[in-house]
């Protein structure tokens, strides 16, 4: 199936990255749209985890298998490398313990695909430094008193974090207005999208 031009650059990139017939876990899969496209385009075996009840009904209507639960508690049962890919598409900044969740995602998945809104985008910087207000931007559309986001990080923060945790960034795409950003992404990209892995150095912890 040809990749649809109408879908976002983020989804198109993920669809390119994921190998056909692979096994995919989507953490915070929302209405199941990404998994549904992965099933159609790449014939993956997909499983979602999602906390919102209405989103569960939408997943089920698309034929997506989904667990109604919190990402923060969703992974301990899975054995190491149970999935080819674990996806955290715009859900990473919403979990309670991102460090724990990513560690678990890298344990149960061979590779992790992760995206998040870039908190140091120039429009966010403008909100903070000039207006003196918490940023409300295209990729961070929520008011401070009503936001699902619990952690705010920049593209640079994430790259530095990966270095600190010995996580390899295999691919990265920086996105602004559905176009790729190649120059100064930490300033001009509103979303960072990464394909990461972790070599565990033979130290495998059991998932059961």
């Amino acid at each position, binding site marked *: 199936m040809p990749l649809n031009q109408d879908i976002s650059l983020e989804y198109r990139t993920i669809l390119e990255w994921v190998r056909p017939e692979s096994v995919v876990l989507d953490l915070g899969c929302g209405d199941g749209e990404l998994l549904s496209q992965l099933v159609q385009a790449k014939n993956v075996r997909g*499983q979602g985890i999602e906390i919102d009840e209405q989103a*569960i009904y939408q997943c089920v209507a698309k*034929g997506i298998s*989904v*667990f*109604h*639960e919190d990402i923060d508690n969703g992974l301990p*049962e899975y054995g190491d490398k149970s999935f080819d890919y674990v996806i955290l598409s715009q859900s990473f900044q919403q979990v309670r313990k991102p460090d724990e969740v990513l560690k678990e995602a890298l344990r149960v998945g061979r590779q992790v695909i992760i995206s998040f809104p870039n908190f140091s985008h120039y429009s966010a910087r403008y909100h903070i430094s000039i207006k003196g207000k918490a940023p409300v931007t295209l990729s961070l559309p929520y008011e401070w008193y009503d936001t699902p986001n619990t952690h705010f990080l920049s593209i640079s923060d994430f790259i530095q974090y990966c270095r600190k945790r010995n996580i390899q960034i295999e691919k990265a795409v920086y996105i602004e207005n559905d176009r790729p950003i190649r120059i100064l992404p930490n300033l001009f990209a509103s979303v960072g999208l990464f394909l990461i892995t972790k070599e565990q150095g033979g130290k495998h912890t059991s998932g059961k």
Partner: protein
Amino acid sequence: MTPTNPSPSVDSDIKQGSRRNPEVSKQTSSVGSIETQYIEFAHYPDEFILENGDKLGPITVAYETYGKLNPQRTNAILLLHALSGDAHAAGFHKGDEKPGWWDEMIGPGKGFDTDKYFVICSNVLGGCKGTTGPSSINPKTGKHYGFDFPVISISDMVKVQKHLIDHLKIDQLLSVAGGSMGGMQALEWIAAYPDKVKSAMVIASATRHSPQQIAFNEVGRQAIMADPHWRGGHYYGGHLPAKGLSVARMIGHITYMSETSMAEKFGRRHGQNGKPHKFSNGFEVEEYLHNRGDNFIKRFDPNTYLYITKAIDTFDVSRGKPLYDVFKGIKTKILVIAFKSDWLYPASQSREIVRACKVAGIDTTYCEVDSTYGHDAFLLEVEEETHLVKHFLRKASA
């Protein structure tokens, strides 16, 4: 053997508060007039061997079917009823005004769409609505079995259902589905006959009873056995232990509701027919419980209550192993549904099933419906269940 007490459907009173499914038009969606059918098997000397080693035979199974079996025989769904249910899941018996116990879910265009699927429901072994149970006649004595009826298990119920499915020449069921005790049977189907079930729906259920759940059942059983009319289970032909069964049913109804649903349904209002006396205030909730309890004897056998609650309490699908070992290698697709306000079968028990499915790598969907109806929700949240069941079955059929 025929049902001794043909009577209105299960918990029709509760259903008045149920949410209608807007997608379905009431007039056109009934399966219409339905008759219960019967098969008989396990005649001497080929009697049925129960899980505990006892023999039982012959066995009559009461069942109903809705919709048509396709020529490939691949569209059959077996529905599994709860404690007080029966084979009459949908449509109307002649002369009845009330339809079967899950009528809102079964019919053309409904969750279990009878335009697409062949839906089967049978009364469980040990029941009192047409399938052999303690109120049936023991061929050896010519009298009701009573307390001479052997102890049965959920696994025995499922084996009897398997016999019915074989009789109907169905090699593999598209799905098995049930709530509460019905969910336990669905789990037992997956564990015992994984190749015979393409998919399974486990609703408001558990892999095994917790001490709290056993405790409530034990109080119910003690209430029945404390009734002087129970007479060691041999009360047939005389006074029935109606008060004992009534108290058991009252306890049951308390556990089926939530604090919120009780507050919404009754508040502290006084009923119309309440007869206040020194220790009863005529509160609506009291009247409701008396009513539900007193009417239960008209359609349910006290001994069946004892046998079936015992079967529920002793059930443990894990068979002493980690549950994921039982589920390992199973290809059955599973849908697990729990309800947030259900404290009798709390969502944590459904999540236990889900955890095992994760480890075993089973294709599973889990939904925790935000309902205030408590355990009754599995009969009442028709809109949500219709959506989940309909799409799950479409996926299972693919």
